[in-house]
């Protein structure tokens, strides 16, 4: 027998997911997280699930870890003591950052403190121009002197970022050699290796984060490895990256800046995997839990990534993060929009007399009013309960009996009375207002990024996702809504269903038309060789490897690039290929911005290469097939509120575990399972596939709320 184990460490719980590679059965265990030393919770979760399943450690073939260690190190200010070396005249690069304020109207704003204190920032005499040509040679004595000083200052890591090193790394390499002469124990991170792209502050910030996190992340991953081996685990040990790919613990120790969004990346990876199972390439992943809802995209089977991310950035009211409130990194990160709208989000009436939902959350304690643990403020969960969409006695498999009266009282007192409306109308308003914020987030990642939701399927998961997704799907007009089996565990599944991935980038500023094909091929070949070597170290070779090559292009004079993925035949960037790519670029620009300039020159900015090593995908469990009529799965009826019906109507409630492949449920209907509840609205129809997934489609004109 062989198994895969996924371990996802969250703020409250550490989840373990054990997958039987042959049968596709999954088992989940939860233990409390141990923030002081997360590896304790990791080991505890692993031990528990192996014991519960009766699986021997040696039967594990693959262990994949989603971790917040890198993010937490930055947010909690626990990075290793780090120094920063840059070109003379620019030592305040980290202090000045982008010279902006993170909040426009706050007279008491603050800037995030630099990760390296100013007395450990040094300007070194040296200078290259923007072509990489020498202006001032590196002053070796100055580097040695700084190295000697840093050694006695108790610094653990040194980040080096010289101007224009993205095009000529020579000075940075010399500096590393010199530093090693006088301070061999120091961890040294070069910007030309960590993030060789132009725009010095972004490159420096990425390099500093890698440097300061590295000793901590390496320690952490190594301690887990040692303890797992002691337990008898021989499995390959992998860790989830911010991009949604995984790589070895060894790579994680080297390049921890790639782990920053390791935790949240699993959900979209799961959606991508489910997409391959059902044959869908373009998906919107919608993950709604207790405190937030997260939206991200899968395009052509790959999670969409962004290069515009800040570690520890503050959430803004509405959606998004305040630019300049965190520390930017330029490594690929899942493009994820997170909003403060979850089941526990609190509804309130503002001083203008309007119902608002979130961003405050009742959390797990006291939780929503209906939990009966002392919460008096109404939440989205309370509203769903009052509308009949949640069952009072089957929530979380009956672990908590929900108190409908408490929900009604909270909604009455905090929302209905102040507005002079009845509690049912108020409850419906709460749900729909939460929906409207989520619709805005969905439109932000689709329409506003130039993607048409009509060409995409919405995959809804997380405990609360399937409760709301039906309305959202209708509103944004996506092709269909897919609700996987056991939505509460979907995210963890992502850990076990992704590929090894290594991302590289090289800046090469030149006109696309005059780019030197040899130089481009050489740069791609170098990145590919490095990726292949790393994959080989992780045990993946030949057929199982694949390179994805991309170009960042823009019009000469612009500074936001569009990224085009190259076909296999476009590898060689000769004149004909260049012309074809320029054509594609014009079309893409037209598609996204509604305008293009075909007579203007296109500029090549960066080459990107992702080296992917395929891991065998897990098999999903299948269910038996049955008749079209879902009567066999009908559990009961209860009154449920739908706006289309102008109030409550008798609604069938189905048991998800008794659904069979091929059954079709006409809305309105509710489907209940242990960890989630799915709402099928009037004018919608759900069919069940062989994996137990619900495919929901709009079958008539649904009137908006």
């Amino acid at each position, binding site marked *: 027998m062989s198994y895969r184990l996924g371990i996802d460490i969250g703020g409250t719980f550490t989840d373990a997911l054990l997958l039987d590679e042959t049968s596709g059965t999954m088992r989940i265990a939860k233990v409390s997280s141990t923030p002081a030393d997360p590896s304790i919770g990791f080991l505890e979760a692993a031990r528990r699930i192996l014991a519960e399943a009766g699986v021997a450690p040696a039967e594990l073939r693959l262990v994949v870890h989603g971790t917040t260690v890198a993010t937490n190190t930055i947010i909690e200010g626990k990075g290793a003591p780090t120094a920063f070396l840059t070109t003379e005249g620019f030592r305040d690069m980290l202090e000045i950052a982008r010279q902006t304020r993170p909040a426009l109207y706050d007279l008491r704003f603050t800037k995030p403190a630099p990760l390296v204190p100013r007395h450990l920032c040094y300007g070194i005499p040296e200078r290259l121009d923007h072509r990489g040509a020498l202006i001032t040679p590196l002053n070796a004595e100055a580097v040695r002197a700084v190295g000697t000083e840093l050694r006695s200052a108790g610094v653990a890591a040194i980040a080096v970022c010289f101007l224009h090193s993205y095009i000529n790394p020579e000075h940075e390499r010399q500096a590393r050699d010199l530093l090693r002469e006088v301070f061999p124990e120091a961890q040294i991170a070069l910007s030309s290796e960590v993030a060789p792209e*132009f725009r010095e502050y972004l490159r420096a910030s990425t390099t500093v984060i890698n440097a300061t996190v590295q000793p901590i992340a390496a320690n952490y991953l190594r301690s887990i490895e040692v303890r797992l081996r002691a337990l008898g685990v021989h499995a390959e040990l992998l860790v989830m990256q911010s991009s949604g790919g995984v790589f070895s613990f060894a790579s994680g120790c080297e390049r921890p800046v790639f782990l920053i969004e390791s935790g949240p990346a699993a959900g979209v990876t799961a959606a991508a995997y489910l997409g391959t199972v059902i044959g869908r390439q373009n998906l919107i992943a919608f993950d709604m839990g207790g405190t937030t809802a997260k939206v991200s995209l899968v395009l052509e089977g790959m999670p969409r990534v962004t290069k515009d991310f800040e570690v520890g950035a503050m959430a803004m009211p509405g959606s998004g993060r305040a630019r300049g409130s965190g520390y930017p990194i330029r490594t690929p990160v899942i493009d994820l929009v997170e909003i403060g709208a979850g089941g526990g989000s609190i509804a309130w009436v503002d001083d203008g007399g309007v119902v608002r939902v979130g961003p405050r959350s009742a959390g797990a304690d006291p939780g929503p009013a209906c939990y009966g643990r002392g919460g008096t403020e109404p939440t989205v969960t309370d509203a769903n309960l009052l509308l009949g969409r949640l069952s009072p006695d089957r929530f979380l498999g009956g672990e908590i009996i929900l108190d409908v009266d408490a929900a009604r009282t909270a909604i009455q007192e905090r929302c209905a009375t102040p507005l002079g409306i009845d509690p049912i109308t108020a409850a419906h308003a709460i749900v729909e207002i939460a929906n409207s914020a989520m619709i805005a987030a969905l439109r932000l990642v689709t329409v506003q990024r130039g993607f048409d939701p009509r060409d995409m399927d919405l995959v809804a998961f997380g405990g609360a996702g399937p409760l709301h997704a039906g309305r959202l799907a209708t509103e944004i007009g996506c092709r269909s809504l897919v609700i996987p089996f056991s939505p509460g565990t979907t995210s963890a599944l992502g850990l076990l269903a992704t590929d090894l991935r290594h991302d590289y980038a090289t800046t090469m500023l030149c006109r696309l038309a005059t780019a030197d094909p040899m130089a481009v091929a050489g740069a791609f070949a170098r990145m590919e060789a490095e990726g292949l070597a790393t994959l080989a170290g992780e045990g993946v070779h030949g057929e199982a490897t694949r390179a994805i090559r991309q170009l960042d292009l823009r019009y000469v004079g612009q500074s936001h690039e569009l990224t085009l993925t190259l076909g296999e035949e476009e590898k060689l960037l000769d004149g004909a290929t260049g012309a074809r790519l320029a054509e594609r670029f014009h079309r893409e620009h037209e598609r996204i911005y509604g305008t293009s300039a075909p007579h203007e020159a296109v500029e090549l900015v960066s080459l990107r290469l992702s080296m992917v090593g395929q891991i065998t995908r897990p098999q999903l469990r299948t269910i038996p097939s049955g008749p079209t009529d879902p009567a066999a799965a009908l559990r009961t009826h209860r009154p449920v509120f739908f706006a289309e019906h102008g109030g409550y109507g008798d609604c069938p409630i189905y048991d998800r575990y008794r659904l069979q492949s091929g059954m079709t449920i006409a809305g309105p209907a509710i489907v209940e399972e242990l960890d989630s509840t799915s709402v099928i609205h009037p004018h919608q129809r759900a069919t069940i596939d062989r994996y137990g997934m619900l495919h929901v489609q709009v079958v008539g004109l649904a009137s908006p709320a």
Partner: protein
Amino acid sequence: MVEASQPAAYDPIRFEVIRNALLEIAEEMAITLRRSAYSTNIKTRADFSCAIFDADLRVIAQAFAQPNHLGSLTELVPRALTFYGAERLGPGDAILTNHPYLGGVHLNDITLISPVHLEGQLVGYVASLAHHVDVGGGAPASIGAFREVYQEGVIIPPVRLVKGGAFVDDVLRLVLAQVRAQQETPGDLRAQVAANTVGARRLNELLLRLGVDHVRHYIDLIIDYTDRRTRSALAQLPRGSFSAEGTLDNDGYGGPPVKLAARLLIDETGVLFDLTGSDPQRRAPVNSTYAQTFAACAYLLKCLISPDIPTNAGFYRHVRVLAPEGSVVNCVAPAPVVAGWETHMRLTDILLHALAPAMPEQIPAGTKGMICHAGFGGPRPNGSYYCFLETLAGGYGGRAGLDGPDAVQTHGQNTENAPVEETEANYPVRITHYALVDDSEGPGCWRGGLGLRRDYYFPDHAVTFTILADRDRNGPWGLFGGLPGRPAAYIRNPNGASHLLSSKSTVELSAGETISYRTCGGGGYGHPYDRDPQLVLADVRSGKVSNERARTIYGVSIDTQRWTIDLPATEQLRERLRSAPAVDPT
């Protein structure tokens, strides 16, 4: 609480859906403009704004990264449409204008206004405003000290630039012939057209889906809601009459300092900004149009109310400004206006100063309080013409319990810096220094932020360079015993035969010359001798404050070998300072 007059047809859900949808449209316009723009000033530094108006010309949603655009479009769009004749515009048309005396600001800010039609009926407008890197005039980047607005660049009254979705080539060519930035300007105008097209399309979809009358009804409700919330927030402010005066250091032509007088009258009707007593307008660039002055007052109000109150006509009706016509805060033709933003920035600082005694916990000491432009251009060594513009940060003022942040943009301005590597790759300049200016902070119990230094070196060609800034004579003021920040300095050739330049000057540089900016620090808050000695120690350790200054101004004696504080010596020093406080040596 909802008022009794609330119409029956109020659905809280529909309200939120429409409110979100309108904001989303404005945001989408902004994203389109930024991503497809060409000039650094728009694409990297986000110097633009977008707005949606209803058919009655009420602003209903806005998107901007720069608060100094508050009110720019709300003043300009109704006047431009009235001037042009809204009835002359058909579907797919757009008018262009930058006219300072038809509701505009300075000439670089060019606005494109497009009507939105649904089934032949006019249902609203979308508008985008962007700061263009050059609009012609007397110096590259169209900044500089001139006597009349006619010298500042091309003045565009409302004219039809787009007809039925296509550029009107005659107009486009006429405008482009006046500007130096031949590469950026067409691309930036295209980006504005793209933004308006997207905005019009989305607004159209929304109205089609929900019905024009229905949406109009909810727009009324959204504006009422904003009005209600603004009113109740303003009612929380301390009542009374609060005044302050200040000056711009110089007008660019050697005239006396430019006086700005501000009185805020806060009573049960809200806030009235009375600027009577400000200097008459000058034949110098420091004149602010009414729209620029209005934006400063609107910014101040926004800072005093909850940030989540929407910005629409329901907010703007509370911005009540008395600005005498013909003054530097409401100039008339033909006064030049290019440095009107400098006046706007100083005015914001002075308005805050006026409120400081009434709201000591909220108000910062004096800040950078200027835009601080650097503009240059000319033929490259290879002959093609180029043009560059950016603005530099400075120190923020100390606040109760908080130091002023170092090197940030302040008030209505929040533009990013241009990365050195990107600048050098695109323009024939070398940035040789970009650093904080040590000891430039205004000392205080809570110190002001440091100013910054940026040096522009031109290795291989002659160039025309313009400084358009201020604060080189008087640094930002301190509050409650805090000392002023160090004034700015604008230096030609700091390493050779250096000399100081005026804060508003255009110079012809030869190859090999350098211009060095040292922006001002922010003012201090509270007495420096009350500053926590540990914070002084940290500042000395970081090199931001010299040990000498720690002794003489903060009264803290530091052992720089062991990084400890000599407490008895500190007590002695402070005792002396309390009886005879230090004066900032700068």
